[in-house]
């Protein structure tokens, strides 16, 4: 288990280094995700302990956004002053983006059969 946690950290570290050296416009962890994906491609399967570590991290993923979210405390005044443009744009734009992307993807990929039930 520890060796795969190390692998994940190593991919992130190499990702940070790669992004810095190549000046890529993506975050280090995203390049790290690509590197871990390439490892899995070469390996040909997901080793069970890696699946467990990944599942554990992803199960707690919502929690990980709480510290950044509490940063709202820093901008209460600015948010209050620009509440109408920020609030309306954020709400409408987010819903519109979800609708456009979801509908288009379902329409373009309509021969794919992974049907969902409601969630």
């Amino acid at each position, binding site marked *: 288990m520890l060796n795969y946690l190390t692998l994940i950290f190593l991919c992130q570290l190499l990702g940070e280094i790669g992004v810095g050296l190549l000046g890529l416009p993506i975050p280090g962890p995203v390049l790290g995700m690509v590197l871990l994906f390439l490892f899995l491609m070469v390996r040909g399967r997901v080793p069970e302990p890696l699946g467990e570590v990944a599942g554990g991290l992803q199960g707690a993923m919502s929690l990980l956004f709480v510290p950044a*979210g509490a*940063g709202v405390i820093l901008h209460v005044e600015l948010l209050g002053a620009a509440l109408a443009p920020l609030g309306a*744009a954020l709400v409408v734009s987010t819903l519109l983006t979800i609708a456009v992307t979801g509908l288009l993807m379902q329409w373009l990929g309509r021969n794919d059969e*992974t049907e969902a039930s409601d969630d």
Partner: protein
Amino acid sequence: MTNLQETWVYLSASPLFHLTLTLVAFQAASWLFHKGGRNPLLNPVLGAVILVVVVLKATGTDYATYFEGAQFVHFLLGPATVSLAVPLYRQWHRVRASALAITASLLCGSLTAIASAIGIAWALGGTPEVLASLAPKSVTAPVAMAIAEELGGLPSLTAVLVIVTGIFGAMFGPLLLTLLRVRNWGARGLAMGTASHGIGTARALQVNETAGAFSGLAMGLNALATALLLPILWGLFS
């Protein structure tokens, strides 16, 4: 009484207190979410953020002090993002089969996110600084902050707007997709990841692995697309 005060002074300066506060607030918010029949209005990230902010305000703690403890939780975002390679690998046959549909949907979604955010905020009198801070709101925080800075926005305001966008998308995205009869798991995940990055991906992963894989992929691709497209679009309109 002095003992209690001394203990508080000691604890409030140690990372343990604010780390534990973050975990307890999230557990409490999750409990409420499940008790409330998983009502989207009781979103656990939103609930936990509110609880933390209330405690910080009540104790007069500044954000920097809080973050010294909370950074250990925050740090795990990196490894969690890397680990998204696992669902992506497991679902790769589906992703590869619809590569063209993914590319087209993602680009349209990315442009929609940018253009509608700027357009609406501009029409309602947003200043250029506000527009620049808001424009990359659908992208994962580190990329969004870098883009906002490049356009003349406030990166720390962008971080907040990114989180709020993520929470809002995670709250109402699944409902909207169901109303629009988007029933395909890949399409649902792609929409969540494009509009609301990691928070949408965390939500998608809770429901279905295919949705989680497509969402994680969309998060990474939209970071790339927005970083390339937004500065060009911004140049055209300003």
